[in-house]
């Protein structure tokens, strides 16, 4: 565990009474909507993806979000990142936030690696000058110097995620939201990724990660939050969290 103990670590994320409801409409076409107008409530299904979620995350901690499929982990991560607005409640955050929900989400297949680095870094919040400064280091880390001026549609999937990961770790975030993409590429590159994450922790960055791998959570996190059907059933140390997760499967 590379966790640091900070004096009076300030909260960087505050989640207050957040609820999110999804509505599933069964009638998608205009005809169906007109025919069912007025009776529309019968043709809607809604469910609460998140219900009354409350927690604070302190700066410098690494928090694992755990839960079975469909328990609301990814939705919660998106609400924290501002990608989805909650129906009620409030999310407060501060510092530069980078969301790694999908590597290379902003890549355009027809552009070269170099053009995509600038575009993706800008999407994640770097200025052009900063990107130029980090450019060599980004390419170095990704180990694809030879192909940087090739269109990314010709990249192998490994090259693609390596470049994307490399950009993401260079944006200097205070808070990093990660959805299952902590380690990519071959085994050697995965080790490099994990080393980078540890370095992040030492630098006091906050990491919120969604993961199904209990060992990874145990290895990296100092705190675990377990969700079940949109509600928090456990919030505490990782060993307890993994226990609560296993118990929720058995029910």
């Amino acid at each position, binding site marked *: 565990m590379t966790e*640091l103990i*900070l*004096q*009076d*670590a*300030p909260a*960087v994320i*505050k989640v207050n009474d957040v609820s999110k409801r*999804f509505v599933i409409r069964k009638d998608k076409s*205009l005809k169906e909507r007109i025919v069912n107008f007025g009776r529309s409530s019968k043709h809607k299904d809604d469910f609460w993806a998140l219900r009354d979620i409350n927690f604070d995350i302190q*700066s*410098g901690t690494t928090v694992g979000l755990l839960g079975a499929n469909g328990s609301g982990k990814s939705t919660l991560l*998106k*609400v924290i*990142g*501002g*990608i*989805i*607005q*909650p129906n009620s409640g*409030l*999310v*407060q*955050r*501060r*510092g530069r*936030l980078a*969301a790694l*929900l*999908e590597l290379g*989400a*902003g890549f*355009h297949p*027809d*552009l070269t690696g170099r*053009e995509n680095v*600038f*575009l993706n870094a*800008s*999407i*994640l919040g770097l*200025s*052009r000058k900063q990107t130029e400064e980090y450019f060599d280091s980004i390419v170095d880390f990704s180990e694809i110097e030879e192909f940087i001026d090739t*269109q990314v549609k010709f990249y192998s999937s490994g090259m693609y995620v390596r470049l994307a990961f490399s950009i993401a770790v260079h944006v200097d975030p*205070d808070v990093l939201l990660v959805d299952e993409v902590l380690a990519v590429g071959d085994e050697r590159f995965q080790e490099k990724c994990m080393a980078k994450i540890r370095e992040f922790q*030492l*630098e*006091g*960055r906050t990491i919120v990660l969604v993961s199904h791998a209990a060992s990874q959570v145990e290895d990296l996190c100092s705190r675990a939050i377990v969700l079940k059907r949109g509600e928090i059933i456990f919030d505490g140390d990782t060993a307890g969290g993994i226990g609560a997760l296993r118990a929720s499967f058995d029910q």
Partner: protein
Amino acid sequence: MTNPAQERASRLAALPFQTSESRSSGKLGAFAGAVREIFSHRELLVLLVRRELKARYKDSSLGFIWSLIKPIVQLLIYYVAIGQFLGAARGIPDFAIFVFSGLTLWGLFSEIISSGTSSIVNNAGLIKKVYLPREIFPLAAAGSSLFNFVIQFAVLLAATIALGLFPFSALIVYVPVGVLIATIYGVAIAIALSALNVYLRDIQYLVEVGLLLFFWASPIVYSWSFVVAAAERTGLTWLSEVYLWNPITLAMLAFQRGMWISGSKDTVMGQDAAGVDIVTPAQPWPADLDLRLLIAGIIGLVLIWVAQRVFSRLQGNFAQEI
């Protein structure tokens, strides 16, 4: 105290919290907030515009020339079919310049709307995964349309020079006014429709029909004088007034007023059998064109505000509806 983690913690402790609801506080404040947010992402906006332009003709060998081929073919079609076969060119001096002016401005307006409307859906991957001020996508579409417009405008200017009809008069100030009004309305409509298109994909097909309608409801391939003449012939003069409510008509008239000098003077168009010159008088222009343009501009700016409010209402659920 050289510990980087401790330094980061103290820096963060001094920062104010941002809330996910900050954009919906107060109507004017929220609009200003959105504008500020987009302004802070202006570098990204430029990159997105370049991405649109680069990606469009990436693997074609003619590249950008394709964006000129379409309007030039259109010009030929309208010149031959409408101008010569249907005879519109008889009443419109220098018909080629007239039609190409109209097509150039129309190209700007219709491209902003059609590419803007699908911009949110086309960037679904980004919208679902990263937080950005989403208005940036229709704006990037508008930016790349403006770039194409500039190229086509350069061709238009070259044509006026080649034909000795370069618009060398004070009326040229109407040109930026026309471009501005077309852009304002295009952007307002694109922002609103891009958001609606997420919930109702029929919008993008509706847009095609709507654009077709507006193309023929604006003086592009026929001139304003035809509308006046038709209104007088049928006695329905109020119809020409209604016709002028269309902001694109006004933008088009302003643009033509500036670019098409033959419309503002008497032109000799050949001789009749007796050898007497046939003189086409200067084109009529609507009364109070300046005032109408000013009003259209103000209404357009209000529409941008309305469109942004609609967008901001709808964008909360983009990530799950796309």
